[in-house]
């Protein structure tokens, strides 16, 4: 039997952390892009596209992320796509993140006084220009704290992709635990690694919140 020293465990966990970080970043970027699209629908003047976006958001916020990942993992092959755990993980977390980010940014848009839209219109800007130059920059700026807060939630959510077989921190720790039989130490270290990733972001979000909107 191979002996695992503490350093062996830590080294393997840190190597697996790369994938957790990479997945979090990919899902955050993807979620931001799709979330922008959902936001456009959500704040559109058309009743039906607003309703469609609300339904999309309610669907992702009203079902477990684990189910969403399973549906990606088993559903895409039915459409004839060969799918790896990595693809299912990125796509699943992307759609999950898009719903939450769209809702967070929508609250920012709603918080702006209507006069901002009127002022934009009176300057002769059309709808897209108003959004791009006036509304969205302010909406993003006042929702910076909850956006960072959601990033923390997203990082923690990557743990679930271990269940559909993506080789990230938690899945690696399961394998190490099966070899070493030291669950207390292994899962304690995993918790510590997650904490070291999330805690600075939580503190940053808290500082943003305290400093208030804008600057």
């Amino acid at each position, binding site marked *: 039997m191979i002996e695992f020293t503490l350093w062996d465990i830590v080294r393997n966990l840190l190597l697996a952390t790369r994938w957790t970080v990479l997945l979090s970043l990919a899902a955050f970027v993807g979620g931001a892009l799709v979330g922008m699209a959902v936001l456009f629908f959500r704040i559109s003047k058309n009743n039906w596209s607003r309703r469609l976006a609300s339904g999309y958001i309610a669907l992702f916020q009203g*079902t*477990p992320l684990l*189910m969403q990942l399973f549906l990606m993992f*088993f559903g895409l092959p039915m459409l004839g796509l060969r799918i790896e755990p990595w693809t299912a993980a990125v796509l699943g977390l992307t759609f999950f993140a898009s719903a939450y980010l769209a809702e967070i940014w929508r609250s920012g848009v709603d918080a702006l006084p209507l006069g901002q839209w009127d002022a934009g219109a009176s300057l002769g800007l059309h709808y897209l220009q108003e959004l791009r130059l006036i509304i969205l920059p302010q909406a993003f700026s006042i929702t910076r704290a909850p956006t960072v807060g959601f990033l923390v939630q997203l990082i923690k959510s990557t743990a679930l992709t271990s269940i559909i077989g993506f080789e990230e921190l*938690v899945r690696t720790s399961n394998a190490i635990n099966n070899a070493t039989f030291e669950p*207390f130490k292994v899962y304690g270290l995993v918790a510590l690694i997650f904490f070291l990733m999330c805690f600075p972001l939580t503190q940053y979000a808290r500082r943003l919140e305290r400093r208030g909107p804008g600057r």
Partner: protein
Amino acid sequence: MAFGWLPGALGDIAHGAATTILLIAVTTLAGTLLSILGAAGRRNGPAPLRHAIAWYVEVMRNTPFLVQLFFIFFGLPSLGIRLDPILAAMLAMTLNMAAYTIEIVGAGLDAVPHGQTEAALALGLRPRQVFVKIVLPQALKVIYPALTSQIVIMMLESAVVSQIAVRELTYEADMLQARTFRSFETYFVVTLVYLGLSMALRRLLVTGGRRALGAGVS
């Protein structure tokens, strides 16, 4: 897509859903109680207790629930504490939820004007009576919507406890799809059950809260 297996599976799905409801009911009660104690301790307790609670909240909020669950279920036996899967799940869910609701309840306690405490003390109520009868009901009323969202989030998060073989909704789905080879359809149906559960739970909490705590709860 084929749903021929569905009629025969309804019993299992209902059984799993019942376990999920049991889990969230226990977690809601125990978690809320724990968070009231935690929030009170964080405000009025001795300094070491205050720091301990603050760190507890930070640690739980910055680590994934799945890891907490594995730590409790697989890690604690090496300290001699061996728990049933369902007990481990209830413990993990309660501890996780309390970390979030301690903050929520604390915000509610802070929102009650200090004059309320002074007035109650002036009327001769003992400090504990002041907390239980005057401050806490007002605080709960303020935070009720936030508490409701947290309970629904916890219900959705409970899908994860299937990983330690608690026979709840997701676990039943795993078993069903292994039997029927209809993975997508099985998870699709179960996802709809979760959606229905979360909508019903929210509706129930909102109407229940309106009745118990009075107006002001939407």
